[in-house]
């Protein structure tokens, strides 16, 4: 594999440029691929679905985009083992496409990222997420330490994971919880969860470990200048915690 990464742009995507730039800074061979050029996706080895409001979040965030022509290629590619990472709206699309947690059929989601709780509003807030599985469970996280804590921003109106009790048990039993919300020191607590997400889940992974959907944005806390708690005198242009996750992803693509 040559390790080429496609950053998918759906109508309504809004985080493609910073996602592309960080992938490249982390050594990734990445390009933007627009919806009118879906066929080009076959030339890539991994897919990144960035944040935004694809198809205006009509019906449910990610629901329409999951049926876009580009997703035909992503579904087919991931079934053949290609990697797919969805961030925020990208995570919602992967879930609506049935790729995470991947416990049902394609395009038949078994859970939902839905309106935040207790108040169903858009919430912008700095958060930390903690790796909740063995790093080796997915090539995308293999470069992270056990219990790695990654800084990110949550910025969505529909980021709360909900599922039936059986489906939640399935998620736990199948080790599909990739990241959970945590405090900066890695400890857990309700105050660290910005939206009432089930079990504090911030990211889901499929059984094979090649599809990962994360709601908060690590790429928005990617450089020291993004990070309010940076050490005094640190180089503002040096990578911060969000880049650690992207480096691991890029390494997973090249593996």
């Amino acid at each position, binding site marked *: 594999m040559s390790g080429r990464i496609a950053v998918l742009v759906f109508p309504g995507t809004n985080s493609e440029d910073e996602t592309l730039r960080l992938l490249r800074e982390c050594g990734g061979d990445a390009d933007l691929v627009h919806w009118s050029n879906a066929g080009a996706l076959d030339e890539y080895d991994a897919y990144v679905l960035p944040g935004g409001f694809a198809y*205006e979040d009509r019906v449910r965030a990610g629901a329409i985009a999951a049926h876009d022509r580009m997703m035909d290629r992503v579904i087919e590619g991931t079934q053949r083992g290609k990697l797919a990472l969805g961030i925020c709206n990208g995570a919602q699309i992967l879930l609506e496409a049935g790729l995470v947690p991947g416990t049902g059929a394609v395009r038949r989601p078994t859970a939902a990222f839905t309106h935040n709780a207790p108040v169903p509003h*858009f919430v912008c807030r700095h958060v930390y997420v903690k790796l909740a599985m063995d790093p080796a469970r997915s090539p995308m996280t293999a470069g992270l330490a056990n219990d790695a804590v990654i800084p990110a921003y949550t910025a969505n109106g529909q980021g709360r994971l909900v599922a039936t009790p059986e489906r939640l048990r399935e998620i736990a039993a199948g080790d599909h919880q990739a990241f959970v919300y945590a405090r900066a020191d890695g400890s857990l607590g309700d105050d660290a969860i910005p939206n009432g997400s089930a079990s504090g889940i911030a990211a889901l992974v499929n059984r094979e470990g090649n599809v990962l959907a994360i709601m908060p944005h690590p790429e928005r806390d990617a450089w020291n200048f993004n990070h309010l708690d940076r050490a005094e005198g640190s180089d*503002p242009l040096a990578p911060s915690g969000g880049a650690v996750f992207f480096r691991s992803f890029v390494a997973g693509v090249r593996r």
Partner: protein
Amino acid sequence: MRDALALRDDELERIALALGREPTVVELHAFDAQWSEHCSYKSSRHHLKKLPVAGGDVALGPGEDSGILHLGEHDGVRYGIVIAHESHNHPSQVVPFEGAATGIGGIVRDVLCMGAEVIGVADPLRFGRVEDPGSHQRTVARGVVDGIGAYGNAIGVPNLAGDVYFDEGFDDNALVNVVAMGLVKLDEVVHSYAPPGAAGWDVVLVGKATDPSGFGGASFSSLVLDAGDEEANKGAVQVPDPFLKNVLMRASYRVFAMLRERKLVVGFKDLGAGGIMGCSAEIVSSGGFGAQIDLDAVNVAVEGMPPEVVAVGETQERLIWVLPPEITPEVLRIYNEEFTLPEIAYNARAVRIGGVTAERRYVLRHRGTTVMDVDIEFLTGSIRDELPYVECTRVEPARRELPAVDVETLLPKILAHRDVCSREPLYRRYDWVVRGRTVLPRGAADAGVLAPVPGARLGVALAVAGNPRIGRLDARYAGAHAVLEAVRRVIAVGARPIGLTDCLNFGNPRKPEQYGEFVAAVEGLSDAARALDLAFVSGNVSLYNESKSGRAVPASPIVACVGAVRDVGHVVSPGLRRAGSALLWIGSRELAVGGSVLAEIAAIEGDLPAIDYVAENEAMGMIKAGIARGSVLSCRAVGDGGMLVALARLAFDAYARGRRLGFEIDFANPFCETGGFVCEVTGDSELDLSGALRVGTTLDRPEIVANGSRFGIAELRRVWSQPLEEVYP
């Protein structure tokens, strides 16, 4: 649909005289829009000439859709900050969500059309009293915030700055001001006029299919709102489509890149007031041309609309290009095929609708007939309306009081006051970090800061100001105060102020007392900007902010200030840094309570603090120098609630970042709003202390000790952060 025209009888007579015939229906509506205050600034323009518009950092002054400031250089490239500021008051009062959303949509297009990437927005808001959950005021206050969030979040532009005041003076007429900022390389600016040699070029309309929404919008905003007309007025409000705008922006960025590759100079302009007619007439007229437009070529949402609706209706999400004909097919291909506009929204597309003519006439054709044919200069440039005004005087206090200050009871009350308490319940609904360039997010400090150029240390800061408690006392002072406060906020984060914009929200210009407030405020803006050697590069006037009861809003000159940061590593980060530092107050310490939160809470009156520009410049210079030397650890401008509130905010900011620090101060009246700065400085500070007063010391525990009264920071922060939770849960 409203058929009322805002044109006056004498204006109608002038039109008929100039045309030598009765105007057509289309012409009537065209002049109605083009000669409205909203489009023509007919009564305000000659007063606005008093404002300073030139200076060292100005790359493009007022006159086009946005102004441009020189930010700095990186890798030999000179970068500009494109900035625009306007109001969407009337629409937001009638349909708050859509009115505010289209405010963001419109201001973003003003910045986009300069060839810029849109990088940030700000939203100065003024609402009425929202205590009653069932009130229209609360509906407006919520709907506006949700509209701004829904639009800005979807297009992916971070919200960096803003402020909000709640005052009964805005009960019938909320103010929704919007600011947008863009990044452009200074040699790649696209102008809002047809370039030299453009005769025979194409006029290309791009965006949403024209529909009947927003018909009469320009003249609507130049009328006084009448509650009984609300249903009829709703038709004048446009419908936002941030989804289409998101795609339109990205497609336009692609067109910019294509034009740069081919080194082509073209014209690009936002459709705002006056619709297709207003935009196409202005873009060709300001280049010295005329135009012939074929209304049948316009992509429409419904067939059979009257020509005047197609011509002047204010459907959102549209722009006009003036292009050499050989490049038109490629531009149409990018919008319609690469970015599939027709699939994004019904019949959205880019389409050629006419041509630029050497003859200085503006001609509209519809179904084979000419429905408008006028001298373009007469249409776009000739209107002027000098209205009488009464010299505005200060509302002098009935009494001059300075009570003994009981910090123990006053501090919690002031922190919970609606003008002082935390705005986070409101701005957490906005995305302040999309695009990944945010250094100081919304609410983290006095100004928002971005690192706009990827890979560069350059930063840009943005802050707004405008205090209605002062506006109702003295309009001229309020103008000066808004400039000083916006500038201080930018300085407090470590930026160098490089330019200003203004939005002037006032009452009915046909009432000499209300108009006098506008005239006085412009003088105040001018005084302060000249004293600080800053220019206004763009702005907007919103008049007729008056309810049918005849009451105007408090004089509301609202200012935005842009700052340049040479190295974002040196931005002053939020919150107290360490225990044992000295706390300094730099600036005037006059004991005056006029216009303060203290005066309102204690029900007292007093004089406004004197403005001393020499002292202001000195204070600003000291802070700049202290930050540059690294001796200022934390800093805030002193504003609503006074010095003690500014210090409490520094302690709250530290607490939110996990630093358990506090401070102890002793000062006669720490709630006076005399301006200046409070800052924490290093013990071995080289700061020149002359003119600075040491008011206290930081503590190693989360406690505030003020004039002997003790407060726990966790509890005080709760008092400060709760009040707006009910309005914005």
